[in-house]
């Protein structure tokens, strides 16, 4: 199981550790008696009620074996604090099953957006890129200091902001900003280049309507203007 655990919190039974992640607030409970840990957690939530209000909680309960009654009660108590229990992470399959029965998530996605800001392990020096293999839907924002490669579509309403180049193996219809840090050599290419708006460094362009059958294109800056040209094999 690839459930992240903050091991340092486990050493001290009295601690409740809160960390913001993409899905909400990840709370790691210390080890020890469940009732005690629960009490500590609830007190913690009450103390920070103003700050946490309306938040989604993901609870990491470690190795504890929890039954529906225990988890259900905690969920209710959490919802009374104007918070919602969204997921439970556990090393115990029993607890995981309990959580699933209650309709709670038992694993969190690997944080996509946050992760993009971390340098990736690549063999090419100085060329950092993030590869996303999914369709970016409306409302999704992908920001990365290096290059961005998407295998999938970028739908209208989604945005990509990259320090370097943007390559879309699919339809690019959202907003894309390459060379966002001012890199005028950045390029954007896509199998179907029809973004709502295309920016390279400080220049902004939109896509003309009705362009017939889509063909792979590459957009770059030429004399301070965004130009898009058809991609053909062998051409540079």
């Amino acid at each position, binding site marked *: 199981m690839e459930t992240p655990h903050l091991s340092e919190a486990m050493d001290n039974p009295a601690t409740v550790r809160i960390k913001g992640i993409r899905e909400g607030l990840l709370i790691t409970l210390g080890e020890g008696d469940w009732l005690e840990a629960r009490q500590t957690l609830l007190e913690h939530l009450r103390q920070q009620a103003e700050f946490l209000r309306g938040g989604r909680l993901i609870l990491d309960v470690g190795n504890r074996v929890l039954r529906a009654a225990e988890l259900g009660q905690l969920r209710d108590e959490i919802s009374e604090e104007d918070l919602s229990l969204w997921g439970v992470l556990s090393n115990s399959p029993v607890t995981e099953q309990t959580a699933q029965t209650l309709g709670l998530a038992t694993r969190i996605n690997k944080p996509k957006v946050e992760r993009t800001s971390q340098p990736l392990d690549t063999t090419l020096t100085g060329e950092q890129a993030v590869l996303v293999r999914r369709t970016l839907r409306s*409302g999704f924002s992908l920001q990365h200091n290096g290059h961005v490669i998407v295998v999938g579509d970028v739908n209208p309403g989604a945005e990509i902001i990259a320090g370097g180049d943007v390559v879309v193996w699919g339809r690019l219809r959202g907003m894309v900003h390459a060379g966002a840090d001012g890199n005028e050599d950045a390029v954007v290419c896509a199998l179907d280049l029809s973004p709502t708006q295309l920016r390279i460094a400080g220049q902004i362009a939109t896509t003309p309507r009705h362009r017939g059958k889509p063909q792979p294109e590459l957009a770059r800056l030429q004399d301070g203007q965004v130009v898009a040209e058809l991609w053909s094999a062998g051409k540079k």
Partner: protein
Amino acid sequence: MGAKVITLTSGKGGVGKTTATANLAAALATDGHKVVCIDADIGLRNLDVVLGLENRIVYDLVDVVEGRCRLRQAMIRDKRLPELFLIPAAQTRDKTAISPSDMVRLCDDLRPECDWVLIDSPAGIERGFRNAIAPADTILVVTNPEVSAVRDADRIIGLIEAEEKGPALLIINRVKPELIKREEMLSPDDVLELLAVELLGVIPDDPNVLLSTNRGLPIALDGKSKAGQAFRNIARRLQGESVPFMELTDQGNIFGRLSRLIRPGSA
């Protein structure tokens, strides 16, 4: 483990979530299933009106959640279909009156009681939407062949995927075959190309739907209506039957042929 919980949502308002909920519920109940609809649009309830049950409300969803009544007491039995029940929303409260876990608990209580639970989600992506999708086994996204509605549907599908509630199924409502033929409206294929989800049904635009919702009489009960037929087909697909999609473009041809048949006689 009992009932299947289905949530209808859309992001954008006014695309026909409530109408679709009422009609699918009526169609499923006509097929002999026990169906409970829940109106999750607290503060802006409509499903009771569309089902024609407005004047029977005594207790509502918030009363159940807050323990002022038993679940059974809030379930209003439909006047025509004895297997169809409605749990109405509270009109005097707002979305924060209940939490997603309240909805999960409520649906767990309903599961052994019936065959289907249909939840009518409010528009938007906030608390009300979260409440509505929390207990869902399957989520149906309703959209219209309009750019703005499709954009919102795309966002909603992304949120559903992030909640691991997917894959969502799509209903395209209010499709006008004549306009598609003239390329003045997005076709179901255009919508599907963008959203890339499974299509559950296409409902043709039909002015009788408006009449039926105003009268509180779901069009799915009208054997002659094409929209009603489309809703009944979706209900059968939900039951696992493979029902071919209706040929919407034929409608124009039939009318064309009919008018051609009639005109010589009347002239």
